[in-house]
């Protein structure tokens, strides 16, 4: 089980459509990015491509995927998994969208 601490990070419209932004804080030393798709859905990922830790927040977003700017790995925004034939994943964090504002869930306690 994982418990989350929810942090407010700003308005949804602060992120462009099919865009992403990195947060001021990270999770256990890893940067976090929030993504906004063309269909106005929000996702949060550890902002490191599973391949060479490239900044996914700088990639091109199409549908619910983002392409890493370094070597074109395609990562699924909902799961953080690399699309086949590449293998690997980056951690996905939960996002809540309420009254136009985005909240990201940071794991505070994880037990198996």
């Amino acid at each position, binding site marked *: 089980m994982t418990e989350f601490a929810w942090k*407010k*990070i700003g308005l949804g419209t*602060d992120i462009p459509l099919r865009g992403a932004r990195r947060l*001021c804080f990270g999770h256990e030393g890893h940067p976090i990015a929030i993504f906004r798709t063309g269909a106005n859905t929000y996702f949060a990922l550890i902002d490191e491509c599973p391949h060479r830790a490239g*900044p996914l927040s700088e990639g*091109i977003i*199409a549908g619910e995927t983002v*392409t890493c700017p370094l070597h074109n790995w395609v990562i699924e925004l909902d799961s953080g998994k690399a699309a086949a034939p590449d293998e690997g994943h980056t951690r996905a964090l939960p996002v809540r969208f309420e009254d136009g504002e985005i909240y990201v869930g940071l794991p505070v306690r994880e037990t198996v």
Partner: protein
Amino acid sequence: MNMIADSREHLIVIGNGMAGMRTVEELLKLGGAARYRITVFGAEPHVNYNRIMLSSVLAGDKTVDDIVINSREWYMENGITLMTGDAVKSIDCEARIVTTANGHVAQYDRLLIATGSRPLAPPIPGLNLPGVCAFRDIADVDKMLEAARTRKRAVVIGGGLLGLEAAWGLKQRCMSVALVHLMPTLMERQLDAPAGQLLQRDLDRRGIAFFTEGQTEEITGVDRAEGVQLADGRFIPADLVVLAIGIRPNVDVAKSAGLEVNRGIVVADDMRTSDPYIFAVGECVEHRGQVFGLVAPIWDQAKVCAARLAGDADALFESRALSTSLKITGVDLFSAGALTAADESDDEITLRDDNRGMYKKVVLRDGKLVGAVLYGDVGDGQWYLQLMREKTDVSALRDRLVFGRAIAEAGSAATGPDIASIPDDTQICGCNGVSKGSIVCAIKEKNLGTLSEIRAHTKASASCGQCTGLVEALLAHATGVVSEKKVPAICECTTAGHDEIRQTIIARHLKSMEAVRHAFEWKKPEGCHKCRPALNYYLLCAWPGEYVDDSRSRFVNERLHANIQKDGTYSVVPRMWGGVTTPAELHAIASVAEKFSIPTVKVTGGQRIDLLGVKKEDLPAVWSDLGKAGLVSGHAYAKGLRTVKTCVGSEWCRFGTQDSTGLGIKLEKMCWGSWTPHKVKFAVSGCPRNCAEATIKDMGIVCVEAGYDILVGGNGGIDVRVTDPLTRVATEEEVMEYAGAFMQIYREEAHYLERTAPWIARVGIDYVKKRLVDDDEGRRALCARFLYSQRFAQADPWAERARGADAHEFARMPEVV
């Protein structure tokens, strides 16, 4: 794995090359893993690779990774122990033990020798000088590539298959290449004299100098090779000498073990050597007096040997008629069997067209085809080979045979050589012995849809690649896709190609990415990272002033107007018009570097200054400070005009003929800010000494007393390409018009991400000349369209962002902590 002792027999393979590993692959197919545990010893430090394709690596068509046949994972997955970089030095047949150079000792139950061959070396002085190498393995190719990078002149000794491919590869790497051949014509074992002469003529036109009837006496040089001295007195200077006069079977280890050896290791039809526990395959063997250098019979040997190892008591190797081809782009030749009539009873029929560079000859004996030599048009090669192998009676076709299958079979039941009429047992891939039937069967049963899948499943066209076209045609035929010449799709979201999309954007007035994707029924509604930037560019180019750039479809560098570095920081390169700067600009750059603690300040190859290691959030402030001193974006990140490199020209230089610096600045002022399919670099040299290196730029101007030479399509990157001369003009105004027109035709007609060099290589310089030089009105119209589009493009992106545009791109969230 549990720890029960392995009770399987031990098969040791000496040699990690193509023949040995093919045998292992065939053995695994037959379930050999249940019977054998397999250990492979290879002398080279690499995994198993396709040696036939070394010439493609040399020519730059492929990388070493591309030609790997089996990766280390493959060995692991199949439970094979691989020992690379450790050659077997001795075999003890009595004790059934091998010992390696590193002192490794291993016992075998069955041994397979696949030691291949060694390059032949002529008995001449100078062979051991640095700068002399063979053309046999990856280490040789590395030496040749190193020489191509640092030195200029290469001499290849040997005008056979290997030597010609080596010469062509080095030529592709921009060396000046001479080829020495002992005989009067090239490839005399595979080609008769007329075909050999046509080949020499074609390669001579491509810039290889030939020294036929040349006997090498010595490779001269003190510390390294300096030249090749021929017996008749001719001397050819050289920085690199490649020996490619032939190969001889590598029999050392077999010979010292006491196995029967003549020219090669003697094997019987079952591929056993004189010791029944020891097999041999490949270029190291001799079978019924014959040794082998081509891949097809070696694959047959591998099959037979694997079957025998698996317990099949009937498999026999039989030598078949062989064909030869050459892997030089644009040179098509085919040869099989007899080259000429042996005596008067043989029939020799020749068809020759020197203008088209086409030559065909067939040799008949007793009503059967026994030889064929084709040059220029080799489409019927496999058909001739099949007639030879099946010893078909061709008397009835005699008069039409040389014209090829279509004409020879016209009037008979067959309708011609279209794909449907090829019989199922016709061999399509000569290297791997794959028939039409087995390809079609694999396509249907395994539902294969691409060439690479067919290669993976059947190996057809996976060795030398010459039958690729036929395999593609079969794929098209079997899957019902129209077998027109396939235009590559822009990406996997659609089947439409670049040109079709661009034409449709104009013809149907498509003005948004959604409209284009809708018109072509894109598979993904938002496209992908490949098509989005391309469509965004095509629309921007088609509708200047109307279409609004979509920054979300730009790669990060173009969106942020800076170059992302591997640590996530950015580099900033201000424009220095024509490479000229001022003390005030230098002060500004110095202050910015200090103020923002920018770690590296470097002079670039394009005559500007690069500030490296700028934090993303500092970018707008850095640009603001630079802007105050008049510095603007240098677009070092853009698919657009990068730099215009100049020399000082007539203003200062005693050789300068024109004001090259001034002209460079004018060109840069005209062209900056424009988006193009890929980056564009210009240079202007003030005299033919060409200090600005104009001959490797997308557009180069070389000033001469009489005016300006305009050169286009050069590239100094991985594939160095020297510019093609476009024209010579008398005035600066004409240069400007040509430059505008050239930018626009490249913008309108090249594919996205295609530099000018490959674009011109694709359409031909004659086409560009026709549009820009022969058509005055067309050139002026192109230039006018360019200048119109520039009205909307020439806004400094740095100044806009320093004033606050796109602030969200540079700040993190939440914005106020």
